[in-house]
């Protein structure tokens, strides 16, 4: 009896091993609410590779989890521009040669030589967009092309403002408002920035990133910082919302698919990158997330509404956006202290 059980057990064990070897797997660490599940299903149907996805809500959370031991369990992740550089400096990224990706040539020319990954050795462009804010025009009909809406709001909006709960973007946006550099060491500037934020906070209702769309769409907030594509989705739910490209400037960013160091399924990861560089698939992400793809030839597949959407088309006289800068450790510590002071 015992022998039979043992044999059966061994057989079951062998079968489970055989099965795991047969089904190739890919583990993706991705922003929340960004890639449509149908696209992942299509990848599985095309390649037979099963996709498992975990999500995060800020570049910092992604980094923290990988640093705390997540490296080696994920194959690809989707960090923003500055985070690609930080992760690369930390040795968290693997490299590939352009010849390993048959669709490498599909990358738009302006996104090949980017300063956070010259020549695209570890990353491919995914989507890019901007970070600014939206206002409910039913609540406030005045001029919204100014960062005063967030940091020195008109009385109609006081107490009805949501802020992104990400120190990096919010402090960079505040620096644009003040006209200060992002990585300032100037004492007077930093003190002024901190003071301005503490005053402005009295007029804010909440800090929320993954709920940034929901608070606007539901009317809990009448103005709120948001990413442009997420804002387009909010407008689809509440037509009176308008995205602003303020005169003081706004943040631009590019998310990138990176090949992680110690990826358990490197081949599957490269296949996935190739898949995302197909114009049709890049467009599918764009149509879902409402940002802008970094891949050539997507136009034919895009939702026509996107081509003219106000979130994706800054007015002609809007200033150029600003990328987030990576500060030196001692400078970064000052900004961290300002953030803690703000939320104490």
């Amino acid at each position, binding site marked *: 009896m015992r022998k039979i059980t043992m044999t059966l057990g061994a057989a079951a064990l062998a079968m489970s091993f055989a099965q795991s070897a047969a089904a190739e797997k890919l583990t993706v660490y991705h922003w929340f609410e960004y890639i449509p599940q149908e696209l992942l299903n299509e990848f599985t149907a095309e390649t037979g590779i099963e996709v498992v996805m975990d999500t995060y809500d800020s570049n910092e959370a992604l980094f*923290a989890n990988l640093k705390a031991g997540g490296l080696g369990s994920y194959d690809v992740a989707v960090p923003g521009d500055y985070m690609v550089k930080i992760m690369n400096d930390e040795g968290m990224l693997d490299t590939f040669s352009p010849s390993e990706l048959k669709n490498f040539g599909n990358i738009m020319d302006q996104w090949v030589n980017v300063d956070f990954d010259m020549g695209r050795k570890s990353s491919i462009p995914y989507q890019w967009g901007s970070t600014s804010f939206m206002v409910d025009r039913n609540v406030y009909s005045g001029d919204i092309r100014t960062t005063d809406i967030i940091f020195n709001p008109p009385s109609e909006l006081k107490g009805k403002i949501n802020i992104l709960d990400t120190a990096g973007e919010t402090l960079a946006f505040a620096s644009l408002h003040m006209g200060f550099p992002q990585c300032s060491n100037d004492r007077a500037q930093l003190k002024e920035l901190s003071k301005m934020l503490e005053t402005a906070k009295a007029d804010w209702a*909440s800090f929320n990133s993954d709920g940034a769309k929901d608070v606007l769409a539901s009317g809990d907030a009448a103005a709120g910082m948001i990413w442009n594509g997420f804002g387009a989705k909010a407008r689809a739910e509440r037509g009176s919302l308008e995205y602003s490209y303020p005169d003081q400037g706004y943040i631009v960013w590019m998310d990138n698919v990176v090949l992680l160091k110690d990826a358990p399924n490197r081949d599957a990861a490269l296949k996935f990158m190739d898949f995302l560089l197909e114009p049709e698939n890049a467009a599918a992400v764009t149509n879902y997330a409402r940002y802008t793809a970094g891949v050539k030839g997507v136009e034919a597949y895009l939702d026509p509404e996107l081509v003219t959407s106000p979130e994706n088309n800054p007015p002609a006289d809007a200033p150029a956006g600003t990328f987030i800068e990576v500060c030196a*450790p001692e400078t970064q510590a000052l900004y961290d202290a300002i953030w803690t002071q703000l*939320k104490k």
Partner: protein
Amino acid sequence: MAGWITKGGHGAQTSIVDGKQHILLMPAWVVIGILLVIPVLVMLIYSFLTQDFRGGVIWEFTLEAYDQFFIDRGLFGDDPPRIEWTYIGIFWRSFLQALFAMVFCFLIGFPTAYFIATRAPKSRSFWLFLITIPYWVNLLIRTVSMKFLIRDTGPLNNWLMSWGVIDDPISMINTNFAIQLGLFYSYLPFMVLPIYASIERYNFALSEAAADLYSNRWTTLFKVVIPAVKPGIIAGCILVFIPSLGAFLAPDLLGGAKNFMIGSLVEEQFKGQSGDWPFGAAVSMILLTIIMIILLFYARAQSRDNTGGH
């Protein structure tokens, strides 16, 4: 294991069944050892290490994290040292919030438990069952639903307005009231169940005896019932107070995450931009120490009660 029990002498067998042998605690010890003691030790060690930029630690001993907690040297670190009130303030706010949650839970939970315990034995399990129903749903989902319910455009405000009770929506979301509501709703059963267990064992003949001695109902309640069920009340208070202290779902989702609570302050150190692990560990250690001191005082008071009682 099975073989050991049957082969062992008669005495060993009965002492296991009687629960006299420590072997029964083995699974619990293993779980506590691996899942509690080791992680706490790791945090204790980390709190004395040097911060690595953006998360991680450098293996060099320092008191930097504790210094940061207690001493304010200004934004640039060269002001004359003063007491740092920022983090003490965060602790104070969290303690106050937990204290309020505990009091509200008691005020609602005690009468509820009393009601259930005085029903006919058959219907008690039905009432207890009702208490546990909300717990079939995940805490996050319950908290988000609460948010939907009380928002300015939510059903609660809509009803009140349609009944003419109020003209404009009451802003409840993103206030301390909302946080309290969330905590109260999350932890009420932790108060009800231990008190219920105590009252159920309470001998109501004592209340009758008090009445015979011309005690009115309130005197009976305060002088007889409450002292008799005190252990259940204290257990309930501890069970509500401690999780409320570390709660960050309710403050973040219902309170708008405007101010750090102890829980979110620690979370920010590990998950946020600053990535200051030793500081996060130090904050946790300070909290752990405070709670242990409170519990020690409670245990001492308890044992004094037991030995010096009448």
